[in-house]
């Protein structure tokens, strides 16, 4: 089958197969270990109705949003500031690459020591994750700006500021968004993992708590909560991106949405 309808059908088929596989695993190893689609769904609704899932999801969302709010602006702005300072950029580069290379999740215990088991440690981790991913993407965008466009607006009298706002920024937006899209699941994941290690709230905390009590159904329900959060964040990012990138030819827009 072809076209969007065919694709939707194929996706439903894959979803059905996954659920059937899960059901099979549940039957083979027992519901106690593997849960199952139906008991997990029941646990999900129970946690939603009790308000536990929404409250914890909101906490995770809040930590992630703060992390984004702190990590994103410098990640975007720094490449623009460094555009005209190749020397500073060259000096900083190995340090940035090294810092980028450190697995951020390994920093979680350190952040908990520094910022406590409250929201601070989650925010710090998410900020460090998003900063580096967005920084390197924005840097690539700034470097890829078509010099002929810059020369063209300069000839018309544009100064450095107008070059930045009218050419370099719009040309870099697709790269910045590629970075944000990549960073989103890592950011949510960062919050959840930090909550797993130490927290008294959040979806990670819920997962940890349920697992400690061998409530497999609740673990899966909380995992669904994480999934929904990631999908929701992705949709929000895509909506903003689509608005800002209306000028792009559809072929780019399509590959962007798929990427």
């Amino acid at each position, binding site marked *: 089958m072809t076209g969007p309808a065919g694709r939707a059908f194929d996706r439903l088929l894959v979803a059905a197969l996954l659920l059937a596989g899960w059901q099979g695993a549940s039957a083979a190893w027992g519901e106690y270990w593997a849960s199952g689609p139906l008991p997990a769904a029941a646990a999900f609704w129970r946690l939603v109705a009790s308000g536990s899932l929404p409250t914890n999801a909101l906490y995770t969302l809040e930590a992630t949003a703060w992390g984004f709010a702190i990590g994103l602006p410098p990640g975007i702005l720094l490449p623009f500031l460094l555009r005209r300072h190749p020397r500073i950029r060259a000096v900083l580069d190995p340090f940035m690459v090294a810092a980028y290379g450190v697995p951020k999740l390994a920093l979680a215990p350190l952040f908990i020591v520094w910022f406590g088991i409250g929201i601070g440690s989650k925010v710090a981790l998410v900020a460090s994750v998003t900063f580096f991913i967005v920084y390197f993407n924005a840097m690539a965008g700034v470097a890829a700006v*078509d010099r*002929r*466009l810059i*020369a*063209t*607006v*300069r*000839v*018309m*009298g*544009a100064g450095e500021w*107008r070059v930045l706002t*009218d*050419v370099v920024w*719009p*040309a870099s937006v697709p790269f910045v968004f590629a970075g944000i899209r990549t960073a989103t699941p890592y950011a949510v994941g960062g919050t959840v993992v930090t909550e797993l290690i130490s927290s008294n709230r959040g979806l990670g905390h819920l997962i940890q708590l349920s697992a400690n009590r061998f409530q497999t159904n609740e673990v899966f329900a909380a995992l669904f909560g994480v999934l929904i959060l990631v999908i929701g964040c992705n949709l929000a990012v895509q909506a903003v991106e689509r608005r800002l990138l*209306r*000028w*792009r*030819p559809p072929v780019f827009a399509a590959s962007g949405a798929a990427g």
Partner: protein
Amino acid sequence: MTAPHHAPMALLEVRDLGKRFDAAGGGDAPWVIRGMGFAVADGEFLTVVGPSGSGKTTLLNMIAQTDHPTEGEVFLRGERILHAGAPRLNPGWNRQIGYVTQEDNLLPWRSALDNVLYALRLVGADDAAGRERARDLMAAVGLAGFEDYYPHQLSGGMRKRASLARTLVYDPPVILMDEPFGALDAETKAILQHDLMTVWASKRKTIVFVTHDITEAIALGDRTLVVSRAPARVTLDQANDLPRPRRAEDVIVHPAFPPLYERVRAAIR
């Protein structure tokens, strides 16, 4: 060089211009342009022809100040606006020199109208009068009805028209054009040449128009310069007084055309 820069009629003068790009391995790079000199009178339509790779684009880039000259000077109304070793370039020399580049170089995130308006917006002149001017110009180059389209939604010919309109809109006294119709089909090219002639006849801009098409050079220009292969310099300065207004299809059947064509062709070696 013969024409002194204070000659009353020369609006733009290029003197002893030379360019060589730094060789990758150091050492002496070959000259792309050397000893290039010519003057353009106010309101004159000058065409420049030469074999491809003869540094014609580099010449325009230096006059537009998007590239540094290695040698020489450029004068505008007798004032030296560029010389070799100048610490910094002033692209477009305070909006006195417009440049229609080979690629349309429209800003892809702006609509056709916003691209045409851009130079006006830079100086806060995109008011009602400015917008009307932009719309009129778009209509004059055949873009009426396409104001709100993004560049990727326009054909190559339309993008070319838009790039022409966005330079005309802010009225620079000198306009450089780098094979603006090079990539177009013959039909579109003829229409655009005609539109350009019409606009030029009404505004009397000073134009330096680079092309590798001899017929186009003769049909459009008051004067045609032939430049040599690298190191490029002027090898023929051929005035022509074919009657105006001209249409390319009339020009080629004019009795004065074949000898002009032959002289220019013979000079391109």
